[in-house]
């Protein structure tokens, strides 16, 4: 595909905002553990992965900028809450470390599959970025899977706590796959295989890992239970996060860093 027409451009921009906003918000959330992590080594690893997320979101905002949107800082820091397209999972407060780890596992597994799919996108700039992210995301999933195994098969209260975290995060994770209004356009033009296929692949990937860690998959009656984020309808947790994240930026918007 060489040039996108108007509707294709809108579809791609919507996709980029969804991915970048997820990464920005979860990157910010995970960075809240910096200095407070359970042990020094994990604190460093988790903070470093949070930085990776911010870096990846920046690359996607950059691409949006090249497609005619505002510059990355303006996109990240000046939009109103209902203009963000992140899913509810990434908005929730960090909670206990079990919650943050389980969210990291469920989200990053979806992200690994998403970027793997996008690596063959007909929209070459996005395919190129996706291939570049491959190694970073692979480490994130290795880290997450190792922890899930460790805690699921661990002694003491860890299996109970990590199961509880799964019960809380799993319904929220389904919101990752809320379809956009442009699914058909993305699929027809081979830009992206679509949220439905991503959801199926994700389920087939995470379930064996969770079962191997002796965890029970929660039964969710309403798969749309956590929908809304992709359309700008957010949880109560997003606004305070954005206010805090943009606090310094708002002091002097034109400051040179």
């Amino acid at each position: 595909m060489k040039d996108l027409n108007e509707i294709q451009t809108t579809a791609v921009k919507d996709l980029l905002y969804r991915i970048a906003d997820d990464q920005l918000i979860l990157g910010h959330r995970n960075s809240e553990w910096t200095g407070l992590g359970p042990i020094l080594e994990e604190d460093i690893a988790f903070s470093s992965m949070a930085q990776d997320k911010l870096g990846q979101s920046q690359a996607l905002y950059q691409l949006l900028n090249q497609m005619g949107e505002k510059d990355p800082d303006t996109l990240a820091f000046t939009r109103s809450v209902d203009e963000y397209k992140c899913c509810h999972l990434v908005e929730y407060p960090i909670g206990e470390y079990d919650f943050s780890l389980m969210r990291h596992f469920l989200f990053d597994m979806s992200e690994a599959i998403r970027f793997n799919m996008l690596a063959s996108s007909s929209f070459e700039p996005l395919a190129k970025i996706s291939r570049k992210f491959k190694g970073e995301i692979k480490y994130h999933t290795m880290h997450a899977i190792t922890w899930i195994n460790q805690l699921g098969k661990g002694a003491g209260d860890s299996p109970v706590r990590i199961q509880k975290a799964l019960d809380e995060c799993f319904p929220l994770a389904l919101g990752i796959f809320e379809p956009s209004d442009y699914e058909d356009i993305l699929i027809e033009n081979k830009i992206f295989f679509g949220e439905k296929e991503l959801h199926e692949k994700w389920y087939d990937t995470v379930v064996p890992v969770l079962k191997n860690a002796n965890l029970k998959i929660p039964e969710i009656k309403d798969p749309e239970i956590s929908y809304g984020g992709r359309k700008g309808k957010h949880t109560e947790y997003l606004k305070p996060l954005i206010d805090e994240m943009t606090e310094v930026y708002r002091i002097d918007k034109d400051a040179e860093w």
Partner: protein
Amino acid sequence: MSDKNIKSINTINSIISIDPRVTREELSIVPDVDPIKDLHHWQTYEVFHQTKKGDRHLHVGSLHAPNPEMAVILAKEQFARRYKCVNLWVVSTGDVISTGYDNEDIFDTTPEKVYREAGGYKVMERINKFKKERKQST
């Protein structure tokens, strides 16, 4: 201190910090932390880093981990997040055999054994002679 001041201090029952993350935690001013017991400490692992395939692995430091799987995962961000790396080794510190500082005297005369170094050989002369002969023969 007036009675009014004492009252205002007593009404604050959680830590207020300039770091909003700390304030949010509503931490008690009186710490309620259990001291760490001996068995709560994880063991240490030694980390070796390789910058290029075929190069030797160099010791870069150590870290805490509960088992080898976690050690290798944590080692990546600890020791290989900034510089080029193609492979990491982790070895349980307990598995390292050491001569020990009690035996430090076995190395006492090492710095004096210059006669064991290759510096004494006059190899370059022979190489230059060989090159010269080769040049003449062609």
